[in-house]
């Protein structure tokens, strides 16, 4: 009866990063739902059509994470499931209808119309980051810009002091790019624990002196007459920080790398800014910053002609599906004007990336400012450092570059952040 196609696959392996196109096409050609024995065994869904069909069935594919075993013992969205977890990671590790309650509260902050309000801040922050380095002719796109802007923005969205971005930035990134096998991992984990404690402090502070933003909305929310559970609010804060920081940074780094390799296409984008909309979707498809997510099958079932058993683990491989030649012509090439583009780069179904509109706007604004201010940037040959493990986030740790020096245009970054803090929260509460 067992007709599973078994493959040797691990999205956290060095082979996955080094040989992505070959591995992507090999696994899909064997079976769009293939089984790997890694991490206790899981299905890898790599076909664009099948992954779309599966995403339509949240009742069959659970995101639940129940490390204490009070509901079902499901392992959530990370494969492997993190050791020592005691609670779920916010609403991405919940199923409908509870998950939808969180999204209902947060969606109004993240609709296309809502995120437009942040564009002036993103633009000014991007310029200020470049002002800091423009006289030197050198920068690291990650450390000096693409880490900073999304982090400050996320602070503003949450309703945190903007200057607190430095507290969360490095720990949040390190947690994603440091594999558990690294000798540095205990330090990274300790940093993450401190970050969690800091979030708990912030939550308590917001109960008595609330600032406008997502945290206050989460604290004020009611579901069936009860407030949200504290642990789930904290999990959600971590989720929004992780989702808000790392993904847009990764997308920007990949785009800058590709535009460095393709000067004619950089010229094309500079000459025709209207290309930016389709180009953004194409960069999201091609790089898929969040490579996929784990699910647990809730009952024996068949989806798209593939049989699954209750309790099976599944990895929704959006990164692989985005390179499916059945869905995308010449999938391993970037075409800035590719459209239609049915990419799954923001995920699919009820768990579609809640920050997709914010990510697009932030990315487009940062890239536009970079191309305007540093049109002749060149990456340092051999200087780029990709994440050691790209199986969770396909990102860059460092991306050093040189360019023709210029003159600063505005205030220093620190002053820009302070001034926006005053704008958002009033002069007295801009910092503590």
């Amino acid at each position, binding site marked *: 009866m067992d007709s599973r196609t078994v493959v040797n696959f691990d999205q956290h392996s060095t082979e996955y990063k080094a040989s992505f196109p070959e591995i992507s096409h090999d696994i899909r050609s064997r079976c769009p739902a293939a089984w790997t024995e890694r991490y206790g065994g899981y299905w890898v869904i790599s076909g664009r059509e099948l992954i*779309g069909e599966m*995403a*339509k069935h949240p009742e069959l594919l659970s995101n639940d994470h129940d490390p204490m075993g009070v509901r079902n013992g499901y392992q959530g969205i990370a494969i492997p499931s993190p050791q020592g977890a005691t609670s779920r990671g916010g609403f991405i590790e919940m199923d409908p209808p509870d998950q939808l309650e969180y*999204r*209902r509260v947060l*969606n*109004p902050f*993240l*609709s*296309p*119309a*809502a995120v437009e309000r942040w564009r002036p801040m993103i633009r000014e922050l991007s310029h200020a980051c470049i002002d800091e380095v423009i006289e030197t002719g050198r920068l690291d796109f990650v450390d000096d810009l693409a880490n900073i802007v999304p982090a400050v923005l996320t602070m503003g969205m949450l309703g945190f002091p903007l200057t607190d971005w430095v507290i969360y930035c490095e720990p949040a990134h390190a947690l994603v790019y440091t594999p558990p096998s690294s000798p540095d991992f205990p330090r990274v984990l300790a940093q993450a624990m401190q970050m969690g404690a800091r979030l708990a402090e912030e939550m308590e502070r917001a109960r008595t002196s609330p600032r406008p933003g997502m945290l206050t909305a989460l604290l004020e929310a009611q579901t069936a007459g009860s407030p949200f559970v504290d642990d789930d609010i904290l999990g959600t804060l971590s989720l929004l920080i992780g989702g808000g920081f790392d993904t847009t940074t990764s997308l920007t780094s990949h785009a800058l790398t590709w535009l460095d390799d393709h000067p004619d296409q950089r010229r094309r984008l500079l000459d025709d800014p209207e290309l930016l*909309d*389709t180009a953004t*979707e194409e960069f999201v498809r091609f790089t898929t910053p969040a490579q996929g997510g784990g699910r647990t099958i809730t009952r024996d079932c068949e989806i798209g002609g593939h049989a699954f058993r209750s309790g099976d683990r599944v990895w929704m491989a959006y990164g692989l599906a985005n390179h499916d030649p059945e869905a995308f012509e010449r999938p391993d090439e970037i075409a800035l004007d590719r*459209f*239609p*583009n*049915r*990419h*799954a780069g*923001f995920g*699919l*179904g*009820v768990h*579609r990336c809640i920050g*997709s*509109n914010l990510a697009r706007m932030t990315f487009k604004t940062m890239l536009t400012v970079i191309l305007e201010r540093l049109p002749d940037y060149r990456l340092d040959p051999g200087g780029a450092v990709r994440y050691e493990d790209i199986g969770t986030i396909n990102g860059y740790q460092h991306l050093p570059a040189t360019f023709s020096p210029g003159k600063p245009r505005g205030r220093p970054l620190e002053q820009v952040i302070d001034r926006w803090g005053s704008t958002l929260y009033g002069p007295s509460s801009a910092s503590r």
Partner: protein
Amino acid sequence: MQVRIDPDVCQGHTLCALAAPGIFLLRHDDGHAYVESPDVPAELHDLVRKAVATCPEGAISIDE
């Protein structure tokens, strides 16, 4: 041509509004798409077909 969005399938990817901004509008609360009228003027048929083809969820249907 008549166009319809299945609200249970739309997840707010917003690509339809990129394809045919005059036809597909986005709700302010969650960014999910809607149409004010199902009737599509002839000059916009191609754009609406593009929107159908680019919807990641397959939420848009047309009746030609």
